[in-house]
């Protein structure tokens, strides 16, 4: 009997925890399925899927950039940034793990400190750097800083993985006449696939969700990424916000994150609990 009571309490507590997480998400989903006249009711009497096409087609009128372009911007910026982060992290991690040179550990720690610095601290100088380089109407204004602030985590994760690869494997290749670059490409990289995947997934998450750089560095409405375009919906203070379309847009832009999370959740949780990361 007592065990039964504990069991009931246990699942009651669990239900509360899960509800606290899910209620806001369910609420926004529910708003996205409503007719305009029921947006300020707790429960709707009827539902519609008409807000999703509206979110896709009317985005341009509403926030000055089409839905497809907005998603395209985010995809483009994320993809190129991640490629840059991966290449630079692999090279740096290989340098740190395979060679000894004066100042190695100091440089490594300086890299680590740099990604923990609040980006707001460098907002002003970086903006003028981009402006003087003539980049504020180019995607590079985002891609370059994303690489700069993304490679330290990548280097950290990859270095610790590279150092776990047994020296014997590398030495065997060298005896067979392989040079350093062949050791990197033929031995280290194939073994490091899980670590590289972690870096890709983590970088994607950071870059895809990044807001402040995207808000300040891109001075061209049609080139802005999803978070900035979303944020403009609440900034349009002078026009009435159409909440059912607002909610539908949120739901639509949440779908990629949800899909990626469902597929890769083990990687995320492993990558994050490696302790290396939190924006």
């Amino acid at each position, binding site marked *: 009997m007592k065990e039964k009571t504990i069991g009931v309490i*246990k699942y009651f507590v669990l239900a509360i925890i899960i509800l606290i*997480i899910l209620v806001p998400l369910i*609420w926004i989903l529910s708003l996205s399925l409503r007719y305009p006249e029921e947006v300020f009711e707790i429960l709707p009497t009827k539902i519609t899927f008409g807000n999703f096409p509206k979110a896709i087609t009317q985005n341009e009128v509403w926030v000055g950039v089409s839905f497809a372009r907005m998603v395209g911007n985010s995809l483009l910026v994320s993809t190129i940034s991640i490629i840059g982060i991966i290449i630079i992290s692999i090279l740096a991690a290989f340098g740190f793990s395979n060679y000894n040179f004066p100042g190695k550990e100091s440089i490594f720690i300086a890299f680590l400190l*740099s990604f923990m610095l609040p980006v707001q601290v460098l907002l002003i100088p970086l903006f003028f750097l981009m402006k003087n380089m003539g980049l504020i109407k180019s995607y590079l204004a985002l891609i370059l800083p994303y690489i700069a602030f993304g490679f330290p985590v990548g280097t950290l994760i990859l270095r610790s993985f590279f150092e776990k690869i047994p020296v014997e494997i590398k030495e065997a290749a060298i005896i067979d006449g392989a040079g350093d670059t062949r050791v990197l490409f033929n031995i280290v990289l194939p073994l490091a696939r899980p670590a590289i995947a972690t870096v890709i997934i983590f970088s994607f998450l950071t870059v895809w969700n990044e807001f402040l750089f995207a808000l300040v560095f891109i001075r061209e409405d049609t080139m802005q990424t999803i978070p900035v375009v979303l944020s403009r919906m609440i900034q349009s203070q002078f026009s009435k916000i159409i909440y059912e379309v*607002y909610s539908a847009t949120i739901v639509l832009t949440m779908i990629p*994150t949800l899909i990626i999370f469902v597929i890769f*959740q083990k990687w995320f949780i492993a990558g994050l609990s490696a302790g290396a990361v939190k924006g």
Partner: protein
Amino acid sequence: MLGNLSKNKKQIRGYLFILPAFLFFLIFLIYPIIFSTALSFYDWSGYSNNPFQNFIGLNNYIRMFNDPVFWTSFKNTIYFVILSIIFQNVFGLSISMFLFYGKIKASSLWRSIVFFPAMLSAVMVGMIWRRIFMGDGLLNMILSSIDSSLGNFQWLGNMVTPIFVVILINTWQWTGYNMVLYYAGLQGVNNLLIESAKVDGANWLQTITKIVIPQLYKTISLAVILNIIGGFKVFDIVYIMTGGGPAHASEVITSHIYNQSFSMLGQNRMGYGSAMAAVLAVVVIVFAAIRIRVERKMD
């Protein structure tokens, strides 16, 4: 080490491999830090071509000490840091122990759900919660359906509650992250010690405080440091939920820097923004250095 190269050649190769990273580091970190530090001693609106015309010495720093909004933002940032530490760690640790020791069915599914908000952009999280805490949002709808005299409170439109609402929402987003850290930590806790404590007649509270928590010492220090750094950095969620308002009541240091430097309505005081940024940078670097020490000890 690799190959039959001379020591010098090997060193040069090492430098070559880290060169691309180092160039990014120089251009996008070191140069901006120097530029920003220098700028903090000048008065510059951002419009003239030469930032370094009006040298004003320490005036930007003096202005900071006399700026009531800076002190509000400082106070709110401290609230953010302290309450984030308390909420995220207490909830994160409790939920992880609940799922780890509670013999809950499908516990990995529940873990994923609690973790999910950490995947979303703070912009999206803020926009979702605005539909709950705005005057015409869900919370007031529910309150007024309970009693028609309730439901008129402007949760984000007064001088006291907005910052705490934002802190709660930030807690909602990041508790799952802390839970995952603690869950990983719990897997390293020695179960034999727990069993023998039970045999010795310890109740569950004693077991947790005397056996489990001491063994989580490293995870706790890491989580606390992450919360401190995260708290000082917070910007997006504040910007979306309140924009620092009303009348700067919910301003944090980062939003104050942004509003002073880039807001369309602000006065674009780049030098002043840089001075505040310098102070914030020093604070965070101290904690970041502590974090690196903690992590290195964990390895």
